[in-house]
């Protein structure tokens, strides 16, 4: 009996190791994508922008996501200057509408607006709501495994597909082996795959509603020498959301 149990454990261990070693870049990025794109989510986040001179700006916003990140709605709660401003992103941020409460005006933005900094932060709109972009817009290749932030990681190189709309030419991603969470992502410039533009570091990973979640994310801009941190104040997954939330009518509420 002991022999059977031992053999069984050994087989399980070997299978796990073999699976891990056999996973190619596309398989790993699919797991990452599944992990990040939960069917629905609702969260409150605090975003702090820090400039080179140490000045800070803080924004608090509530966001909702549906269809595994295909639809996103962001509404600002703080500061007073931005209160009530809202952004609706559909089709993985290919369609963006912004609402300005003081003028009650909704403005449709074209795809190029995805590159714009969100409220002057180091996150672009594209960074906030690109959904399946890791799979749809990039070809993923597994590089040699590395240790990153004291964690064993798969290292992936994502190269933009020729007709993709993403504004990064290449990404390097460190994905933890234990839960397939991308803890570090390096972003390279659109026109120069050798120029490192930004680095995202995700930390304080907690399991919420059974889903690993980074409670803190810091985007560092290598060109401007600025950084923006995003702290998760509250998050819920697989909540019941009405599809009508992701319309212009809801944007104005």
């Amino acid at each position, binding site marked *: 009996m002991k022999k059977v149990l031992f053999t069984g454990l050994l087989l399980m261990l070997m299978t796990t190791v073999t699976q891990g070693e056999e996973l190619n870049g596309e398989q790993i990025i699919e797991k990452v994508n599944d992990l990040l794109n939960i069917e629905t989510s609702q969260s409150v986040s605090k975003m702090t922008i820090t400039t080179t001179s140490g000045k800070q700006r803080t924004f608090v916003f509530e966001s909702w996501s549906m269809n595994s990140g295909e639809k996103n709605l962001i509404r600002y709660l703080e500061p*007073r200057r931005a209160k009530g401003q809202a952004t609706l992103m559909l089709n993985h941020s290919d369609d963006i509408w912004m609402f300005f409460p003081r003028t009650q*005006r909704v403005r449709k933005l074209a795809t190029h607006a995805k590159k714009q900094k969100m409220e002057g932060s180091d996150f672009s709109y594209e960074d906030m709501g690109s959904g399946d972009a890791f799979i749809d817009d990039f070809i993923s290749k597994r590089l040699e495994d590395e240790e990153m932030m004291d964690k064993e990681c798969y290292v992936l190189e994502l190269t933009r597909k020729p007709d993709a709309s993403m504004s990064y030419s290449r990404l390097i991603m460190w994905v933890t082996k234990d839960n397939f969470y991308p803890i570090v992502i390096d972003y390279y410039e659109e026109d120069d795959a050798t120029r490192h533009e930004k680095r995202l570091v995700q930390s304080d990973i907690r399991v919420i509603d059974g889903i690993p979640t980074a409670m803190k994310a810091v985007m560092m801009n290598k060109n401007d020498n600025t950084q923006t941190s995003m702290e998760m104040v509250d998050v819920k997954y697989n909540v019941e959301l009405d599809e009508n939330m992701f319309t212009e009518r809801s944007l104005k509420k």
Partner: protein
Amino acid sequence: MRGLETSRFMRKLLILFIILMPAGQIAIAQDMVDIFGYYETQYMGTALDQEYLALYSNKLRIDMNSDVSDNISFTANFNYITYHGKTQWNILDFLPERVISDIPAEMRGFYILPFDDQNFLDNANVRFAFEHFDLTAGKQQISLGTGYVWNPVDLFNIKDVLDPTYEQPGHNAMRVDIPIGMDYTLSALYSPDDSWKASAKLARFKGRIWRFDYSFVAIEKIWRWHDYSKFDMTRYSFAELPERRRLYGVTTAGELLGLGVWAEYAKNNMEETDDFDAMVIGTDYTFDFQTYVMAEYFHNTIGKSDDSQYDINDWMRLMAGEQKTICRDQVYAYIQHPLTDFIQFGTSGIFSLTDNSLALVPTLNYSYSDNVELMAYFNVNLGADGTAYSQSQGSGGLLRARIYF
């Protein structure tokens, strides 16, 4: 003695109760009503004929919002504005001699644009969000069209070409928005005047196809313009020429070849004067290095095709906000680049294709802190005398600080 002390104590308790009770009520009210707003102080200067003219203003806007229940919300804002410095501007000082020479000397004092202190309730409305439609009743923003500077389909507002994103006053109206599926909305609006006939009515169908939003608009409104060559001494104002205007328009906004694009077209059927068309086409783009560029072309057949045709009515109607332009064809171009995370530098140029005049407006926006914004606008007119943006109108600038609370 004890009775006197008790009486003093009771009196103190009563006073404390009276003081605390309203404070408590205010606290409860504040829980239900979100109160916020801003204070804005602004300095505007213009160099004109060897003189430097200055107008200073202070504005306090207090907003209130309350979700009375799940489907009913109330909003309102109160505005208090004071003006100081040169609060009486004679528009004739900015117009070419050719235009003002026909105006009798005794009438010249009537062309005054006054900046009087104001306090008013704005955007005070209640919104009922029913399952199948929204109903908004009260003073509200009516924002029509996709254009950035010019909106041919908007009969309710005229933007300031030098400051097109500044908030517009609300309009008293009842409005129904009926969503049809995810992509379509049917809206109807009624803005009452002294009779049903004189009231403004609007119907709009808005939808989405592929990467484009589009809308069809029909509006009927009395256009209250004036004849600025005739002064009505009995009413002590220029002669009013109210006229029914019916507008049929179409708008779109979307993306083409990677560029943001938008367009509006409006056909205006006038009851007495000539019908006219207006159209705007615009495009924008953001480069990888964060520079944003935009251009908009505006064509309006009510505008004159030659600057020699501009008359006192054209100028006055433009200044009084009765018509959007005096030129038939204009181009607006804008470029903006973030100098730092908190400082945006931009320049807009407004070029009249009709009279080849140009105004340049460099702008600087600085986010000083989370709730403090500083803005500087400069305005340089480079056109020849008599043109829409002539040097003789003077050049100047504006400094604005806005503190949100």
